[in-house]
């Protein structure tokens, strides 16, 4: 389950504040603006939610709060039954291992092979190498990239990189899968294939949140949605 109760977020770090300014959400001399303002919603276990809104609306900020890359300045967040505000850094890290994240820009490690990229979450969890080999091999077969397990990310197409990214996101059998514009860099055929993978995971019981501004994709895979505008939740259902 994912639950937000009156959640607010303001970026304090200079780089992110300047990013907000570039998007027109603030001025150079003003205090950093709230990028998420009083957002409340609840996604049940095994649920699927589209997170929609225009570019700069705050979708990525909401996703960052869900996958624990940011902490709110106000409000309460429950992720997989855990109140995030009470966790220390170690507990936060352990909770992150139960969340799979797929990024628009893949965020694969360029110096590692496809196999090692997929294996990374299991190695961080110190799983036995035999189990890692079995699981990674199985997942690479599932995403259709068994033959390219030794390839570096730069040797793969965008669609192949995204499939490696989703394999990495799900290898730890996450209870929650979060995807930020996962089809943004893919052609239609690759986007359809990726969505089939994501919906298959949802049918297996994984809670899924997918942020997109591609309303055509939303129409092809109908599901409840959360709509964000100006950092506020304007629709839930």
């Amino acid at each position, binding site marked *: 389950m994912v639950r937000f109760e009156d959640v607010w977020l303001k970026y304090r770090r200079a780089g992110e504040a300047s990013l907000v300014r570039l998007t027109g959400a603030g001025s150079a001399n003003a205090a950093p603006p709230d990028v998420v303002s009083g957002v409340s919603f609840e996604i049940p276990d095994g649920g699927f939610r589209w997170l929609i809104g225009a570019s700069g609306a705050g979708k990525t900020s909401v996703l960052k709060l869900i996958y624990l890359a940011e902490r709110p300045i106000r409000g309460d967040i429950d992720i997989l039954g855990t109140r995030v505000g009470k966790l220390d850094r170690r507990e936060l890290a352990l909770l*992150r291992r139960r969340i799979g994240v797929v990024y628009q820009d893949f*965020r694969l490690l360029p110096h590692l*092979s496809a*196999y*090692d990229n997929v294996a990374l979450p299991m190695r961080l969890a110190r799983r036995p*190498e035999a189990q890692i080999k079995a699981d990674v091999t199985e997942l690479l077969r599932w995403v259709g990239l068994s033959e390219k397990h030794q390839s570096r990310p730069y040797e793969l197409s965008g669609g192949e990189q995204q499939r490696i990214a989703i394999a990495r996101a799900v290898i730890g059998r996450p209870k929650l899968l979060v995807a930020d514009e996962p089809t943004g860099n893919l052609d239609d055929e690759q986007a359809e294939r990726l969505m089939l993978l994501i919906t298959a995971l949802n049918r297996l019981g994984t809670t899924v949140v997918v942020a997109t501004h591609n309303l055509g994709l939303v129409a092809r895979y109908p599901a409840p949605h959360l709509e964000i505008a100006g950092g506020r939740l304007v629709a839930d259902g």
Partner: protein
Amino acid sequence: MARRADQLGLHSAMADRLIPMLVGAMSFLAVLAIAGVIAAAALAAQWQGDTGAALTVQVPDANAPAASGAGDRKGAVLGVLAATPGVTGPKALSDAELDRLLKPWLGEDAQNLALPVPAVITASWSGAGSIASLRAALDEAAPGTLAETGARWAARVAALTASLKTSAAAILVIVALVASAVIAIATHAGLAQRRETIAIIHGLGALDSDIAGRFALRATLLAGFGAIIGAGLAVPVLLWLARLAAPFAGVLPQTGAPSLPPLLWVVLPAIPIAAALIGWVTTQFTVRGWLRGLA
């Protein structure tokens, strides 16, 4: 597919030359500083032992009659010294020994120059009694007799040794701080270069201890390796200095094979261990502090 794949790519991110070179140089200096203190302490102990216990008595007109009228002045002084508690082994230098002592100043025939050379008596002084009362007793037996102990010089040598130790300690602290700063700078550079990678690994659930541990392992190995090289390079320099110092220490003749104090052989392997420890601690603090910038 290696289990220990370099997940953070640290082999290219943390310079494999900067840390070993600078930590090696710091270790070289640290070894020299420690060796200097050990050598100074050994020399000081020897000098203090020799000088502090030495009692030198000069008796002018040694062959003149003593004040008591019984025997000459030198004999009277020897009698007082023999009867004084804390004074042992009084011995009047022979003419040949005096000639040898005065030779650097007066040439070969000091006794033939008609100079009023006093008799010189040496003895060991335990410091049990008062030097002032000894001087008074000597002056009564043979007026004009001078008595000197090495206590003042021993105190000066002790003060010099203490200041050398303090200086060496300051050098070691500075060397450790510089090594730590170099490692911190290199770590920050590695963090900046691998910022994106670390953010990804952090997002996948890596513990701070996982990330800091990988950086620390790399820094520890580089610092330890550099220190081994630096300490190793110091050994021939120390042997050369030991050879030069041997005549002063009275350990070996100048032509003999030089040797290092046993304590230094304990210190030498301790330097790389200390450098590795500095590398580990510095990197742990640096990386953990940096990671606090992430959620």
